[in-house]
């Protein structure tokens, strides 16, 4: 898995930068960015698999952490625009000038520093996950109820971010980014760098998650997934284990979102939509939950086919996705990676 990722990470820059443009093997920058986007999705899927596959929490709100990380990064990028905005205001982003705001709200302070934004990318989703998880796990909200309140959380956030008064650009979100850390976002080299960063983040996130699931903490969380009450009676602090894995997963999702935004060039409240979170769960389900690499495969596969179908046969895409959901849940409860073990079992 990691080896494939390494090969891809080496191959993609070479194919994009060194192979001449008229060659059949040349990768356009567009494709590189697309691949980079898929990798951030894969990281998000790993984060979701960690809580669903190993903790048994079917989260329908993980896209919220992704979007929060994205917004933190978007705020940094917004501040980097500086005087190059349409209104040319040195400190206020365009939409604030448009809304007649006089000064930067307090929660925008500090986002002109990259280190601060990077910290927030992890902290904001982490803290939200901590508060949410602390409340939910302590009161032993489980199963369907938990799924639905995670959905309520992301829905509430979506409605909140749609409001202009919130100070996050309302409906339009944050966009029109110019550069990151002084590098032009539209340059090929920056795109490649972002792609490589995403690959590295995915690799590190994957390895960390792998370490967690094979540690004692991971074993305990599998025990919780399979028999929560029994684990509690044996003496495990179920709430704490759940909470820390959940917070870690949220932070991973936040990082994925932060890498997603500079590559896509926009973040808007639509990213909070409950639909996105459900789609994310589908990637994991299709790849195969509880394996981590299955999540990566599922995310890449579904998103690749989404890009392909929405361009080639837009009417068919929803039919295909819908059918995929039904068929996978009915016939492939372990996802695509489950196919191999099924074959192994037969032989």
């Amino acid at each position: 898995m990691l080896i494939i990722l390494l090969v891809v990470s080496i191959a993609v820059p070479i194919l994009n930068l060194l192979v001449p443009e008229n060659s059949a093997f040349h990768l356009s920058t567009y494709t590189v960015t697309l691949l980079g986007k898929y990798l951030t999705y894969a990281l998000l899927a790993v984060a979701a698999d960690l809580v669903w596959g190993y903790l048994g929490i079917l989260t329908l709100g993980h896209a919220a952490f992704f979007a929060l990380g994205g917004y933190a990064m978007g705020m940094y990028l917004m501040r980097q625009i500086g005087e190059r905005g349409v209104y040319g205001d040195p400190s206020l982003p365009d939409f604030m000038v448009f809304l007649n705001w006089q000064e930067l709200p307090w929660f925008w302070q500090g986002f002109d520093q990259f280190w601060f934004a990077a910290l927030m990318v992890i902290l904001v989703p982490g803290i939200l996950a901590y508060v949410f998880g602390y409340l939910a796990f302590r009161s032993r909200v489980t199963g369907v109820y938990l799924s639905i309140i995670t959905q309520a959380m992301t829905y509430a956030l979506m409605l909140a971010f749609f409001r202009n008064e919130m100070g996050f650009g309302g409906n339009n979100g944050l966009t029109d980014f110019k550069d990151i850390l002084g590098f032009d976002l539209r340059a090929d080299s920056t795109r490649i760098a972002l792609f490589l960063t995403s690959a590295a983040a995915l690799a590190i996130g994957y390895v960390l998650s792998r370490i967690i699931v094979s540690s004692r903490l991971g074993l305990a969380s599998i025990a919780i997934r399979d028999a929560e009450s029994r684990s509690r009676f044996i003496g495990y602090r179920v709430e704490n284990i759940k909470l820390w894995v959940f917070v870690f997963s949220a932070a991973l999702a936040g990082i994925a979102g932060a890498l997603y935004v500079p590559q896509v060039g926009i973040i808007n409240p639509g990213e909070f939509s409950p639909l996105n979170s459900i789609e994310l769960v589908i990637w994991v389900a299709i790849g195969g939950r509880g394996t981590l690499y299955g999540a990566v495969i599922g995310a890449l596969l579904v998103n690749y086919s989404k890009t392909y179908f929405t361009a080639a046969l837009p009417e068919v895409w929803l039919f295909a996705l819908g059918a995929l959901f039904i068929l996978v849940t009915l016939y492939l409860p372990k996802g695509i990676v489950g196919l191999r073990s099924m074959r192994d079992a037969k032989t």
Partner: protein
Amino acid sequence: MTAIAGKPISLLLLLFIFTTPLQQAFASETSDDNSLENAWETLTGKSYKKKAEAIEVIALQNPPEALPAMMAMLESKLYYSKIGKVFYLLKETGDNYEFTPLFDAETVIQENKQGFKKVKINNRLRSLIRQLLAVIQLKHNDADIRLAAVQELLKKPEVESARLVETAIEREDDHRVITAMQTLLAVIQLENGDEAAQLSAIDTLSHSLNSSAMNVLTEYKAPTRELHNKAQSAIKKITDKRDLYAKAETIFFGLSLGSVLALSAIGLAITFGVMGVINMAHGELMMIGAYTTYVIQLLIPNNIGVSILVAIPAAFIVSGLVGIAIERGVIRHLYGRPLETLLATFGVSLILQQTVRSIFSPLNRSVETPEWMSGAWQINEVLSLTWNRLYIILFCLAVFVALIMVMKKTSLGLQVRAVSQNRTMARAMGVRSQWVDALTFGLGSGIAGLAGVALSLLTNVGPNLGQAYIIDSFMVVVFGGVGNLWGTLVAGMSLGIINKLMEPWAGAVLAKILVLVFIILFIQKRPKGLFPQRGRAAED
């Protein structure tokens, strides 16, 4: 009070109008100089004083032409032809001027006003006409017009109107008009009467909800301390009453929103609550119900009212059948795995959405509201309840009662409850559990279809209709307690009311966010909802 020209005359006339014998005497006595014909002719003259007299004569005799002519004069739309001096009412139609004759003559349409002259009036005449109009209207047969006339007078209460109304009130039989007239009289007494009259006037006004009565009381300068206190307490009484009715209106809005929520959640309460299936396609079943209404309306285009009544059973059947198909095709393989039904039914919902989009196009369609559902039920001057909201509440309650009856009184309901409590035991007792599952899911889906009919009358019908309601419906079910139909109803209604109570100070979006946060916190406190299921069946 404005002093108007010819006031003594007008006063006299006003009195005469209600004293018929005198009126006739007056009319015959003056028929030589002031006959109707002369009066009409005087209107084409130049002297405002003479015109005022003429208008009074016309109003006094009140021929059928008087009312339109006076209205037209107020709007400067009364013209006469230069040749022949025939009266016409002007109507501007695009580029043309249309002159409709007041008496028998041909309608004239031309591009300019050539050949016609306006009947000019000044401000004095204008207020005279207004008052005379009120007189004519107070005698009108239609109670609504009489009421409007009294309310017009209330805006500018004058002593003359008091005499006018005092006579009129005796033959009035419509209680709304009587109340308005009493308010008017009290307002005038408050300004002009002696202390005893003022006292009783305050008393009358304190029962009124009219905003001009309120204004009069606020501006009232009481001669004595006692009267002042009395007036203050009357003001307080009116304000309290108006607040009370405003609250009642908010609660009514809340109940109607709550009914929509409850209606969309009841079906889910069955599939999710009773069967343990998380049906993400529930919203799409509502959408199908709404589209069924739309199609039926296309089939019966001439009779909207009937089409809605036909749509109710039709939507139930169509959505129910689709639901049974989903159950047989997908869900039956997934019992006992609630989280996976979520994924599979979400797939179904995507397919249904796209199907509808392919058949009906992604554009929103609108369903026409039948006549008996538009308008409002005016309870008093402050409180009016719109019919469509009222019908939605009633519809929701009817569906709910019917469902409770099915669950409690029929053998199907008994079997559904048996299967949901203990599937194995129910099967051992001879219940065909698969058949029951299919019918239960069909019932839940059919109710979603009914909710769709209601929604189609409130909003546009589009492929995304269901998505907008699915999260709300889940919140209602979870808030009420899974597996509890009463809980769903109570939860829906209370969430609706909470939402509407918060809307005035928080705004619609923030109110919704706060409700969501409230539910998230509530679930922490009571993880199984308002009315949790108790007993062994409730354990996982």
